[in-house]
């Protein structure tokens, strides 16, 4: 944990003297990549951050959307990659804890958690299995204990994460607009540290997250304590209702150092604090350790002396620590004392604002040849291949994961995990639909189009529930930004996301950047993860059971876009080809058409077509309704392709609609009106999933057998390897 030589010089010249060791620690924590975004910040500004529903207030760690009727939804996303890679259980759990406190900071109640998980090859690698199993358990134990439902997410395995893990957690909150915390401070206000005690755990964590794993400081493990977190949630919401909080911030990376300097900088105040007042776990902690400890489950609160009494009473009721550690001053300085002795006295503005970097970028050379396709090995039995495909870890049902998460608590979950997006009911009569999506395989082949694809896929998923996308969260995960080729992929992804967000009018309401994701074998593939929130004014589309005679309609064109597809990578072991691209005009048209159809209540379900292509999407419909289907591949609209490409292309903007026969003409009329390309490609019935091409059957599976394989394979892999 240290500043780079030029940063040290800069600090010296800014303060005009040699910094104390405490000052060095504080600044090093705050100027780390994790806390300062120094490599990314100047570029992130390109994302559109405003919109009709967005409430922008200072000091929030989460995005806020006005959802009407006096209510707001808050949302944020975080990752805990480095800690999870060495201690998956605690790392994933404390990741949940951190993002939940971000939601709490705005004064809203956390109502849902989402997790995006990435690991190496769990079929071959037992380390990957261990990481996967324990990360899931960590999220389950933490979220379940808090009573916040984990209602969605995704899991993906790729060799690029060997001996590593990406654990992303998003949280959504809900509350009354008039109860939002309006961060402010008055003269004479006190600064309170609330929650768990401060120990030596997690010291150096934020630098840890900003370095590659090789140079890790392994003392950075944190032990999760969801019970204290739950008490903090209830205590703070009670304090919020009683209007006892002037300003609030959670303690995350960089511990007290970051929380104190950021709150001082945002509110344009100074804070004088005494480390002796911090309730610590060990007696002999040095001020430096107290300032940078990343012990979990702590919140910083600014309140008045009068309100303090009531706040202390609430803390007593919930038996959580509550230390008055300092007071608000007006010299804009962060003044850290131990008793009477000063250990640090620096401008908040200097600490909180690292010099931003404009790093060089260069198009990676591997991209020159990546679109060249190799000759594929012929497949003799596609039915057999399909069975294997349905058990592939990236295709198989994720029920082993989400059944360990309490996804019902809070009694809001209208559409449960297992389909596309999940849907929550809100107290204003509306519904919120959310999904997170990523696709490093496509982002590797084309960082720009891949990132756009993730965004569109998340939109598609919420659209399938009848929701109009109203906000986006992005989480940009890359290798070392000091490598110009990697930094180029970062910029490309960001530009892609920006274009899509602007064109579709979907503001970015929050995000996070995680860099230096390096494994012993090299950088991870570019892994942006996109969360989309959608609103439903009237009624969500809850998928109904498909029965005999129902029709299958596809909306959107299927193109020769198999680059980064599961078919190329899993079946043919080939990384390369044409990355699917999103045609904005088509995409919008399809979205609007599907939303209109859903609002008219003429379909039974809508499902997006993504990983594994049409073949997998149709199979999922069949398996979840336990019914067969006859699909004519020749009818599928789009480019003229060989049948395997029609089956497995991962072209975007495609939806599968299921509809009762009697409604089919109504449906077609609307689709025609929107001028989207679509076709009625099949009929449900029987017990076989059948794909036919030119009147010959190319895939023919028993749905019960397929279902058994698909539903159990992930669990079997985890348990028995």
């Amino acid at each position, binding site marked *: 944990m240290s500043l780079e030589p030029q940063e040290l010089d800069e600090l010296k010249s800014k303060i005009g003297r040699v910094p104390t060791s405490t000052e060095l620690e504080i600044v090093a924590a705050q100027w780390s990549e994790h806390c300062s975004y120094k490599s990314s910040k100047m570029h992130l500004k390109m994302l559109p951050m405003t919109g009709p529903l967005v409430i922008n207030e200072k000091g929030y760690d989460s995005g806020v959307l006005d959802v009407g009727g006096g209510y707001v939804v808050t949302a944020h996303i975080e990752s805990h990659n480095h800690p999870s890679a*060495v*201690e998956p*259980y*605690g790392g994933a759990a404390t990741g949940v804890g951190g993002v939940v406190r971000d939601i709490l900071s705005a004064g809203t109640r956390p109502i849902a958690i989402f997790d995006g998980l990435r690991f190496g090859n769990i079929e071959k690698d037992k380390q990957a299995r*261990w990481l996967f199993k324990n990360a899931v358990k960590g999220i389950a134990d933490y979220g379940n204990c808090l009573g916040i439902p984990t209602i969605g997410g995704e899991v993906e395995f790729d060799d690029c994460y060997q001996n590593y893990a990406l654990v992303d957690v998003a949280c959504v909150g809900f509350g009354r607009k008039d109860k939002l915390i309006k961060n402010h401070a008055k003269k004479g206000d006190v600064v309170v540290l609330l929650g768990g005690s401060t*120990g*030596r*755990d997690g010291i150096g964590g934020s630098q840890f997250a900003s370095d590659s794993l090789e140079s890790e400081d*392994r003392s950075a*493990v944190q*032990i*999760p*304590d969801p*019970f*204290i977190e739950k008490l903090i949630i209830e205590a703070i919401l009670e304090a919020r209702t009683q209007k006892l909080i002037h300003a609030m911030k959670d303690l995350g990376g960089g511990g007290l150092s970051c929380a104190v300097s950021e709150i001082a900088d945002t509110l344009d105040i100074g804070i004088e604090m005494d480390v002796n007042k911090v309730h610590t*776990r*060990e007696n002999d902690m040095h001020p430096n350790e107290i300032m940078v400890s990343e012990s979990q489950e702590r919140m910083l609160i600014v309140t008045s002396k009068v309100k303090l009494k009531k706040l202390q009473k609430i803390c007593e009721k919930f*038996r959580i620590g509550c230390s008055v550690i300092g007071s608000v001053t007006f010299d804009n300085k962060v003044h850290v004392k131990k008793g009477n002795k000063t250990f640090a006295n620096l401008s908040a503005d200097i600490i909180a604002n690292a010099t931003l970097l404009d790093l060089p970028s260069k198009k990676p050379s591997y991209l020159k040849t990546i679109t060249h396709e190799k000759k594929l090995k012929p497949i003799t039995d596609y039915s057999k291949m399909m069975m294997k495909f349905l058990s592939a870890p990236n295709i198989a049902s994720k029920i082993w994961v989400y059944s360990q998460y309490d996804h019902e608590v809070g009694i809001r979950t209208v559409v449960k995990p297992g389909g596309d997006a999940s849907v929550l009911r809100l107290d204003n009569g509306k519904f919120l639909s959310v999904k997170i999506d990523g696709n490093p395989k496509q982002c590797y082949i084309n960082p720009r189009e891949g990132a756009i694809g993730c965004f569109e896929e998340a939109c598609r998923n919420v659209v399938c529930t009848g929701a109009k996308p109203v906000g986006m969260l992005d989480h940009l995960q890359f290798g070392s930004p000091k490598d110009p080729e990697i930094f180029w992929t970062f910029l490309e992804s960001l530009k892609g996301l920006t274009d899509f967000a602007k064109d579709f009018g979907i503001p970015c309401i929050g995000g996070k950047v995680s860099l230096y994701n390096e494994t012993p074998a090299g950088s991870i593939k570019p892994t942006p993860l996109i969360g989309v929130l959608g609103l439903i004014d009237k009624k969500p589309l809850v998928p109904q059971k498909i029965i005999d005679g129902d029709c299958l309609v596809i909306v959107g064109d299927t193109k020769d876009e198999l680059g980064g597809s599961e078919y190329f990578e899993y079946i043919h072991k080939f990384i390369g080809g044409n990355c699917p691209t999103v045609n904005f005009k088509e995409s919008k048209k399809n979205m609007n058409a599907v939303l209109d159809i859903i609002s008219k209540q003429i379909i039974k379900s809508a499902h997006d077509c993504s990983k594994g292509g049409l073949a997998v999407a149709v199979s999922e419909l069949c398996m979840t309704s336990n019914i067969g289907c006859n699909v004519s591949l020749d009818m599928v609209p789009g480019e003229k392709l060989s049948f395997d490409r029609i089956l497995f292309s991962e072209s975007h903007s495609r939806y599968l609609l299921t509809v009762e026969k009697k409604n089919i003409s109504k449906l077609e009329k609307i689709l025609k009106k929107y001028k989207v390309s679509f076709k009625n490609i099949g009929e449900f019935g029987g017990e076989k999933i059948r794909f036919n091409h030119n009147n010959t059957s190319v895939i023919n599976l028993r749905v019960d057998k397929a279902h058994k394989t698909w539903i159990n394979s992930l669990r079997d892999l985890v348990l028995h390897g």
Partner: protein
Amino acid sequence: MATFDVHVTIENKPGISDPEGETILNDLVLRGLHKSVTKIKTAKMLKFTITEKDKKTAHSKVQKICDDLRIYNPMVSIVTVDVFDA
């Protein structure tokens, strides 16, 4: 060959907090007014029954199993292996 009972105790490293022990102490034992208790730490134990030629082999065998199966994470926990005659 002889049969041994091998006890494996897994606990958090010193200095790493143990929230479960703290809750049991604060919310159960101290509330039950047993003030002479000053600390509680939780641990997990696995009792193996194993047949090996001697104590030493039994010890190293069990240690190896715990490492291979990743029964504990050395980052967080320490493990103690004790061998007894069955």
